[in-house]
């Protein structure tokens, strides 16, 4: 069996918060990511879904080294990334790229499109100026932008077009893996569909793998073969796309799927909805035992107080895994 492209094992990211002791040690830790493990195979995509504050973005940023990991391991084709120096990261920066949520904030307003796209090419030492110019034009063509607009500034483009520039920049170094952090959530529906289609098309064309972070399950379903669901810093379920949507195994996944509104009045009228009580707890003071147990609608089906005492481990069974005490 070949090695997965990316192996994430027991990845943990805690942020020190609040007042510190005299020795400068933090007294409290925000457990943003708490022991997350998954693999991504070459050319296949994993969707990471969950509600705001569940740690999905922190997880992505820790994987690409924007946050140092508290513990755990991230391996890219067998190489450990969490211990790399800045310089050591450089060859992997080329192979692992990122697309951000906000196409307004993630482009430098003072650079032209040509400068934005030239920067990674220069940094990775890809070609002479003339070759780089041709490459920039072909990148623009690949993401569906008019190559004649190469001297324009970001503010001259619409939101969807700006996101295309961000995608072109990510493609510049010919990556194997692109981490997409909510790449379409800031866009309008009609534009969102254009970008989702573009991401699908580029994946085929360049044999890309995506780690796709989103809160919109329908978008993730469209692009990812596997889906992992996070709740309060932990994975609660991971499964192939069709199985997760047809047959969710974790109570939180069930509730999440049932809460997604359908753009179809007939379905909306007849479907049964699990409305969860309460709010997502704070990751500063996570509940004891299973992080989901205070809101879980199936907590009564587990005998005793196991749910509130024991953290359920992520158990693998065939193609899928789940962290729940239910039988």
């Amino acid at each position, binding site marked *: 069996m070949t090695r997965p492209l990316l192996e994430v094992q027991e990845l943990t990211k805690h942020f020190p918060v609040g007042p510190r002791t005299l020795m400068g040690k933090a007294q409290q830790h925000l457990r943003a990511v708490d022991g997350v493990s998954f693999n991504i195979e070459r050319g296949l995509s994993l969707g990471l879904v969950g*509600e*705001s504050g569940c740690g999905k973005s922190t997880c992505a940023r820790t994987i690409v080294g924007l946050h140092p990991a508290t513990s755990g391991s991230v391996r890219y084709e067998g190489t450990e990334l969490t211990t790399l120096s800045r310089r050591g990261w450089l060859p992997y920066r080329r192979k692992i790229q990122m697309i951000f949520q906000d196409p307004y904030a993630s482009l430098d307003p003072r650079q032209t499109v040509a400068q934005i796209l030239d920067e990674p090419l220069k940094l990775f030492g890809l070609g002479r100026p003339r070759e780089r110019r041709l490459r920039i034009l072909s990148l623009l063509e690949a993401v569906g932008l008019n190559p004649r607009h190469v001297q324009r500034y970001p503010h001259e483009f*619409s939101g*969807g*077009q700006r996101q295309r520039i961000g995608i072109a920049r990510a493609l510049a170094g010919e990556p194997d893996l692109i981490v997409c952090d909510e790449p379409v959530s800031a866009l*309008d*529906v*009609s*534009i*969102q*569909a*254009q970008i*989702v*289609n573009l991401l*699908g*098309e580029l994946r085929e064309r360049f044999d890309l793998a995506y780690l796709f972070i989103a*809160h*919109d*399950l*329908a*978008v993730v*379903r*469209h692009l990812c073969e596997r889906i992992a669901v996070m709740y309060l810093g932990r994975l609660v379920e991971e499964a192939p*796309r069709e199985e997760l*949507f047809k047959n969710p195994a974790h109570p939180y996944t069930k*509730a*999440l*799927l*049932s*809460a*997604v*509104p*359908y*753009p*179809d*009045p*007939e*379905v*909306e*009228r007849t479907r049964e*909805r699990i*409305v*969860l*009580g309460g*709010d*997502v707890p704070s990751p500063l003071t996570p509940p004891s035992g299973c992080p989901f147990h205070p809101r879980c609608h199936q907590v009564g089906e587990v005998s005793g107080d196991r749910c509130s005492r024991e953290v359920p481990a992520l158990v693998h069974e065939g193609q899928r895994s789940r962290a729940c005490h239910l039988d």
Partner: protein
Amino acid sequence: MALLTVKDLAVRFETHHGTVRAVDGISFDMEEGETLGLVGESGSGKSVTNLALLGLIPSPPGVMSGQVHFDGQEISALSEPELRKVRGNRIAMIFQDPMTSLNPLLTIGRQMTEVLELHKGRSRSEALRLSATGLGEVGLSEPEKRLAQYPHELSGGMRQRVMIAMGLLCEPRLLLADEPTTALDVTIQAQILELMAEVQRKHGTAIILVTHDLGVVAGTADRVAVMYAGRIVEEGPTSQLFQTPHHPYTQGLLSSVPRLDSDTSHDLSSIPGTPPDLADMPSGCAFAPRCPIAQPECTKTRPGLLPSGIAGRSNACPLAASPSQTEARP
């Protein structure tokens, strides 16, 4: 008689880039206890419509025209002090972001009682008692304790419940909800939508629900009006409009939404191009540059919203496939 009648409502803003027609002549009616979904993409004019109904358009730069009849009164002709008697009283509004629309310096109790003291002349203690009851009704635990808290002490979902409770204190006949669940997570959104439906059943409040989320509309609205570039392009009963959308924009919008049960082996269908610049509108139909069935004549005159021959439905595309209409045009 309809509870609310809006006729030729238009709002334009004079800017450095020219005149922006944010709302460009829209008309609709609403009955008692009905929910109207106002959908469209950003910049389509749906939020400005809501603000205009309450006379909340800043002027200058905004200029408003048209008529708004509510409950036998022409509120578009009211003076500012008279409008203040309507706002928060007979017509209430819930905004998208409960963090920025609650005053961070005042306790929840102070903000809630203000409405009752002002509109209903209640004493402070009476107003506090009614506010606590209101908070309990929207499902907040320990309402008395909440009254003494500040907005930052509550979660997003709780703040939105406070907004709803505050909006309902004076038992309004009409509730304007501007993207009330957009800032919330889906599981919290489900709670809030259910709460609004329950409130409506109980008090018979009419609701205008402004949203870009077609899923939310599908589950809550009786009727839907689809807006594009400042105009209503199609209107009709929710189930019919979703089942057989007539206007090409509605068709494109509905088919570009990814669904949990759609086929993932194909691309999503998308609408090419981007919405027009409101300060530099194309001539003729605003959607024509993106429309798959556009004809040369579409760029000549801007079509109006006309009844489509099917009860309760209307659309603004003369080419739209509607059997009665094609028969009527030889």
